Structures are given as C-alpha cells and as structure tokens.
C-alpha cells in the first residue's frame, strides 16, 4: 500500500497504471479506427493540415464489406476454427490421458518420460519447420487441414499434459481407492471419479490450447499453399498484400475480425485462461 499524501498515490499508482493500459491497448484502438475510416482519409500524409488521426467523422463499413465479399476471409475463419477445435480436442484427450498416467500411475521410466514431454514443450516450432514440411509432404498431408490438425498437438499436448499433471496430483488418492473397492476398474475410476473433479483444469488447458492454435503462424505459412486452405493469420498476411501495396483498410478489418473469436473465448473464460497461463509457467 502507498502511504502518505494523495498526490503520492497519483504519481506512484494511477499515472503509471494509466500509461501502461494506454500503451498496451492503443494498437487495438488504432485497428478499430482504421477499419471504419474511408480510404480518402486513410491515405492522407501524416503532416497534411487536416489530418485527424484519432477519429473519423465519416465512419464506413466498406472495408469489412470488401473483406467479406471480395476475399476468402470467411473461408479462412472457418478453416482456422475447424483446425483450432480439432487440434485442441486431440491435444486434450492425449494430454488428459498422459497427465493421468504420469501423475497417478507407477510404471518404469515415469520420471524420464515426464521430463521428455517437458522438453518437447520447450521445442519452438521454428526449430523443426523445415524437416517437418518435408515430412508433411511425404505423408501427403501438404495443403490440407490435416497438416495442421496433426502437427499443432505437438506443441499443445506437452502443455496440456503438464497442466493436467498438476491438477491430478492435487486430487487425493483415497477417492479413487473407494471407487475401486466398490468394483470399478482403473479406467472407469479415472473417467467417472477423477475426470469430473479435474474439469476446471481441462477447461483451462482447452482454452489455452485453442488460443495457441488460433495464433499459430509458421506451420500454417509453410504447410498450406492454396488460398482457400489458409488460416486467418496466413490469409491476411499473404492475400491482402499485392506486391508492395498494402490494403490497410481491409487488412485492419481482417485483423480485427480475425481476433474476435479468440477475444470472445477469452472474455468468457478470463479466469480459466489466466489459470492455464500461470499453470503452464509454474508447472
């Protein structure tokens, strides 16, 4: 707490916090303003006399209209959604199973397997994208959604496993033992007794995994080539720029609309997202 006069509270707290919030959010404000600004105002040099950058008197939806009618943006949204949901589902199933095994079962090499999975968690996509592009081509997955649905779990599973291990470890062993005395098999005890308790963890892992797959860029850039297969980040990058010409209106509209699904998921599950984020770091 800050002691003393009111001005101290302003200098040490309100002013720095306001500056932080302003700087962190300004680019998004800029995205919105650019989206609704007509082209005539958009391309007015910054030192022109009647330049009013921070608002517009004549808001327009022409860029959004262009984006939806003249480009494949809605296809990209659908592609991204399908890929993100499918890879999240695969990763959750794998992560929950693996996390359960590593946290609650005794078997040889459990420790080294856990460490191995943790290490794959730290492997960045940029280390492997070149050989992986070759492999994807050899498996005949190139330029299909499967290329991403099957490769995204490589960076989602380790994180889901790690997060679920934490949750499973916190559940007392006695619960399972009771169920087993009542005649449930190990697998049933896991599905009916332990999984329902771990739902908050599964939700956190799922939401974090969904935003990560929506965000992914380099695999999508390298593995997909035809415009109608692309995801939002890649489509916006490659199809809304012709040579050196940037269509800033539709670009910003695409950035804005492309962010909405993630922002919506995030706004409904802030607490779970934060739990996933901090859990992923704490391990």
């Amino acid at each position, binding site marked *: 707490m800050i002691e003393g006069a009111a001005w101290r509270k302003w200098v040490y707290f309100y002013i*720095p916090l306001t500056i932080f919030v302003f700087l962190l*959010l300004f680019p998004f404000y800029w995205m919105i303003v650019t989206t609704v600004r007509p082209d005539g105002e958009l*391309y007015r040099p910054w030192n022109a006399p009647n330049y009013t950058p921070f608002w517009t008197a004549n808001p327009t939806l022409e860029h959004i209209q262009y984006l939806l009618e003249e480009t494949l943006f809605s296809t990209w949204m659908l592609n991204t959604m399908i890929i993100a949901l499918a890879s999240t589902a695969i990763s959750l199933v794998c992560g929950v199973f693996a996390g359960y095994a590593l946290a609650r079962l005794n078997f040889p090499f459990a420790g080294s397997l856990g460490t191995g999975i943790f290490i794959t968690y730290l492997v*960045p996509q940029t280390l492997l994208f070149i050989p992986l592009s070759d492999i994807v081509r050899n498996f005949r997955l190139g330029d299909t959604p499967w290329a991403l649905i099957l490769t995204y779990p490589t960076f989602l599973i380790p994180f889901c496993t790690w997060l679920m291990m934490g949750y499973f470890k916190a559940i007392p062993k006695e619960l399972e033992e009771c169920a087993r005395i009542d005649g449930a098999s190990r697998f049933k005890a896991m599905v009916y007794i332990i999984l329902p308790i771990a739902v908050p963890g599964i939700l956190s892992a799922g939401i974090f995994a969904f935003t990560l797959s929506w965000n992914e860029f380099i695999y999508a850039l390298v593995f997909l080539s035809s415009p109608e297969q692309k995801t939002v980040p890649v489509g916006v990058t490659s199809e809304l720029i012709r040579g050196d010409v940037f269509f800033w209106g539709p670009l910003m509209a695409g950035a804005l609309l492309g962010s909405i699904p993630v922002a919506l998921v995030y706004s409904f599950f802030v607490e779970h997202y934060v739990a996933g984020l901090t859990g992923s770091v704490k391990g």
Partner: protein
Amino acid sequence: MSVTTAALRTPEAASRSRVKGLLEDERWLAAALLFPTMLLLGLFIAYPFVKGVMLSLTSARVGEPGDWVGLANFAKIWDDPIFRRAVWNTFWYTGVTTVFKLALGLWLAVLLNRHFRGKAFVRAFILLPFIIPTVLSTFAWKWMFDPTFSVLNWTFYKLGLITGRINWLGDPDLAMVSVMVVNIWRGVPFYAISLLAGLQTISPELHEAAAIDGARPWQRFWHVTWPLLLPVTMVVVLFSVIQTFADFQLVYVLTGGGPANATHLFATYAYQIAIGTGLLSEGAAISLAMFPVLFLVVVVQLLYIRRVETR
C-alpha cells in the same frame, strides 16, 4: 440355439476380459494412456528433429534429395555475413527485450497486486496484446510505423519532438528497435500476469513484519518480495527467452528481414533460405544452429526446477 451363440461369444468375451485384466495392471494402463501422445510427439517432433539433422548434412533442395556433403552447409553459413548478422541480431534482440519485459512486467505486476476498483477489468484488458493473434496485432504496428501515414510521426511532430519524418522500418538500426518495441509490447502482459500470480502467493504479513521493523517500501521490495518471487521469475524468463530467441512472426511481418537483410533472426533467415530460395539443407542447418543455445536454456531450466523441487 442359445448354447451355440454362447459358444460363439466365448472367445470374444475372453479376449475382452483379458484386455480388461491388462488395463488393471498399472504398467499396461500407463502404456495405453501414453500411446497416442508418444505416437504424435514421436512422428512430429523426434522424427523431424532427426530428419533435420540428416537434411543439414546433405545438399537437398525442394523436390531433390541431394547428396551427402558432411558439414559443408555449416561451414558455408559460418562464412555468411548475413548469417553472422542474424546471430548477433538474435542475441541482441533476446537480451534487450528480456531486460525490458522483466522490468516493465514486474512494475506492472506490482501495480496490479493492489486493491482498486475495476481491477479484474484492467487485468483482463492488459492481457489482450498477448492473446490476440500476434501476426494480426503486428500488422496494426506495421501500419503505425508506416513511413508516409505514421500516427507515431504525427504525434511526435505535434508534440514538437521531431521536425521531419522518422522512417521507422526503413533504417537498419531503427528497424531493429521498432521490432524490439513490438516484442516488448507483446511480452509485458505475459510477464505481468505470471509475476502477479507469484506475488499473490507472498503473504502480506511478511511485508507488515518488515514494515514494523522499519523497512522502507523499496527495501521491502528488494529484501522480501524479490527473493520470494525469484523462482517464478526464473521460470518465466527462461520460457520467454526460448520464445524470443526462436521468434519469427514479428520480423517476418514488420521487416521481412530487411532493410538489406539487417534485421534477420535465425528463424526468418532459415525461412528465407529454405522456403524462399528452396535450399532446404542450408535452411535446416541455419535453424539447427539455434539448437545449442536452446538446449543450454532447457538444461538450466531443468536443473533449476529440480533444485526447487528437492529443496
């Protein structure tokens, strides 16, 4: 009739109960549960890694397996001035942004670790730079850095800080600074929220005790908060160092490695060589050159986690 069906069912039922029996054994259940994970990680992490090493020792191009050339690709990139520049850029980029992200993130975390009205709201909003797809928010920055229509230039001009235009992404040194600014902007929320979670585990009583003993706010931070926060800080920094070191998207969108190849990082240069010019083997060598550093960071992280766990 019923006898025959029962006789027909028996072997099936028997095998089913055998599977059930196996799954009652912890070792078999663990193997079954871990199988899908091992399959995917083996196919798409371990195999590509081995393949990447093999690739880097050949002269492969797109659609052409090439011949065994030993370490020729590594010798070639070692003498490549653009690669050397990229190595230097990557270290400089990682070092500078990590210092800023840690300092600003910690400051923001301390500000947020306080009760004020609208706290949940503020906390939710400041994470936006981290959750919004990086490529998309980076385009907003690219537009803000635009040489002709830059809002930053306008603002600084109106404030009387500059007289002419600043070519944010056109000048080699300034372009690197611009990329760093965007990286810091995107990373600060992650640091702040993670460190905030760490701060919240520190009991306020420790602070009160220190205050009663006469410690000033700065001393309380340095002698009470910081040591207790160190484990979380270490892990956050190591994670972020790996991500920053292997960064691709920011440079790809903002400068594409330009102007005149001055802002390449390992990943963007590997992309340009492998995908841009089709020299898969040389590209694989460039991205594998990241490996020793990443490996070192991972080892430090594992040792550190083990030390914390066994304490």
